[in-house]
């Protein structure tokens, strides 16, 4: 297994290079001039030209790419056109925020989605099943902005329980940090919970009709044991893959949520960067998320194999 993991980490390098080339070329295809986009209303041609030179935007694309790559190798991801900050520093600032949000949202999703899926499967076609499905699917269809704003109005404005928006670092003031993140994490988590619920339910149903569940019942195990250890453990396989994928969705969904709750995370960073054509930031963030995906998928794959003894020999 360590060999397998090592190999996977090695192939990650070409993957990352492909991704960066991909992003780089797409950027070049995008309409919109970074310098112009950044200039806003102040469009002095001399300054624009200076900036183009400064950020090497006049060089051939290939050169730009290699220049950038050369920087990356030495740990220099360039600087943001928009704020003049080093990209690495920006990422360093936002990453903990996003990770915190993602983890909390995932916790919500798991805590809500999986038990609901299990209940729905066990009581298939009963009112519990219907209710769980309705709740889950409404969580999926209710737009994040609506839920977010409603929560702010209810919880913050009317009840005054939680801060309406903003962010505090978990290292500075953990309690407030958690408080500010509860609502966004919940909002972000609902859609994921829905997906987890549906997958858990379906996967559980597939297993529940297997013969070995009959064996487990014949042993006189309690429904809890039959369901949790015999069925759920087997049902976990597609769910593990799903969870890794959902982290990707978390990033995408985070944009709107971060916007509503004014959380200075990755989502907002990348959206602003794309809209202002702040390419150094785009590249840096994409690379960083790609690493995240690769790790998540790797973990999912390893877990997958560990959960399935028949696959273990393949590691």
């Amino acid at each position, binding site marked *: 297994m360590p060999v397998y993991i090592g190999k996977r980490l090695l192939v990650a390098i070409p993957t990352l290079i492909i*991704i960066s080339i991909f*992003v780089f070329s797409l950027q070049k295809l995008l*309409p919109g001039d970074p310098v112009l986009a950044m200039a806003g209303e102040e469009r002095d041609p001399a300054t624009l030209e200076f900036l183009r030179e400064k950020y090497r935007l006049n060089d051939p694309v290939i050169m730009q790419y290699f220049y950038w790559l050369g920087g990356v190798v030495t740990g220099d991801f360039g600087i943001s056109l928009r704020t003049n900050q080093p990209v690495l520093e920006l990422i360093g600032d936002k990453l903990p925020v996003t990770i915190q949000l993602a983890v909390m949202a995932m916790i919500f999703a798991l805590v809500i989605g999986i038990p609901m899926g299990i209940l729905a499967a066990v009581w298939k076609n009963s009112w519990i099943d219907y209710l769980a499905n309705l709740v889950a699917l409404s969580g*999926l269809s*209710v737009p994040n902005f609506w839920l977010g704003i409603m929560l702010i109005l209810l919880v913050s404005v009317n009840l005054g329980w939680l801060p309406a928006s903003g962010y505090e670092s978990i290292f500075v003031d953990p309690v407030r940090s958690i408080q500010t993140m509860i609502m966004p994490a919940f909002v972000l988590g609902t859609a994921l919970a829905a997906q987890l619920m549906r997958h858990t339910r379906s996967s559980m149903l*597939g297993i529940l009709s297997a013969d070995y569940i009959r064996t487990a019942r014949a042993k006189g195990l309690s429904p809890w044991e039959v369901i949790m250890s015999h069925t759920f453990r087997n049902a976990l396989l597609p769910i593990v893959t799903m969870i890794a994928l959902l982290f*990707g969705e978390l990033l995408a969904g985070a944009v709107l949520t971060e916007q509503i709750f004014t959380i200075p995370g990755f989502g907002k960073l*990348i959206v602003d960067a*794309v809209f202002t054509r702040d390419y150094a930031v785009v590249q840096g963030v*994409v690379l960083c998320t790609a690493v995240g995906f690769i790790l998540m998928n790797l973990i999912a794959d390893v877990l997958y194999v560990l959960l399935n003894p028949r696959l273990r020999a393949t590691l």
Partner: protein
Amino acid sequence: MTVVETINAAPARQKSRAWRKMRANRGALVGLGIILFFAILAAAAPLLPIPDPAATDWSALRKAPSAAHWLGTDDLGRDILSRMIWGAQASLMAGVFSVAIAVFIGVPFGLVAGYFGGWVDQVISRVTEALLAMPFLITAIALAAFLGPSLTNAMIAIGLSAMPIFVRLTRGQVLAVKTEDYVEGARSVGLGHVDIMLRYILPNVFAPIIVQATLTIATAIIAEASLSFLGLGQQPPAPSWGSMLNVAKNFLSQAPWMAMWPGVAIFLVVIGFNLLGDGLRDALDPREA
């Protein structure tokens, strides 16, 4: 019944068995009903006695539901009912076709990656990872710029971005199923890879794919709105549910119904597809009564 009759009746019966199970499944029927309802509405929009969805009425801005406007009016005084009906077309198409694209590309790749493993898997999986890491926004803006604003292109963009999930999900399931004895059995009777994949593995990995597809429909409908916002997809004043929601966002407290109806419609369609998906899943599973 003679042997020969039995034989000839067989294929038909096999299909009709799944079909009969579908028909007996109340949930699936309700789901189908909901979808048909919206699909027919969408198709019949030009024939229905409803106002022009783009007709503005400055004297009836953001009016709550009333006898004149059953579902109220929007920020430009347009009839929401009419916009809902006309918007159904774009939204359903966005939902269904982009998911179809994702499924029809993603599932085969996942199947091949999981089944063959080795370098095929490596290549497909790594490319998938690259696609996953690609920000949707960039793809969308680039597509919008190069292909121009059309619903078709929006569906392609959404479909492509939803595809990696199907690749990964399918691949994972295939890994598990391919260790089953019946796959070995199929190999031992000398079936080719394609047959094994299509007839032995695919049917046994279909459940999570159906689930994911029915879920993705919801995200696709909502994503269409953000794309039309970027200049890809349905352009104003032509309505879609997603873009109606988008506008409604600014009037949540002044005109809550503007967000409510498209929300309800999306919810219903999602429920519909999920119920249908569940029905399909049960019908295709011979073990389910």
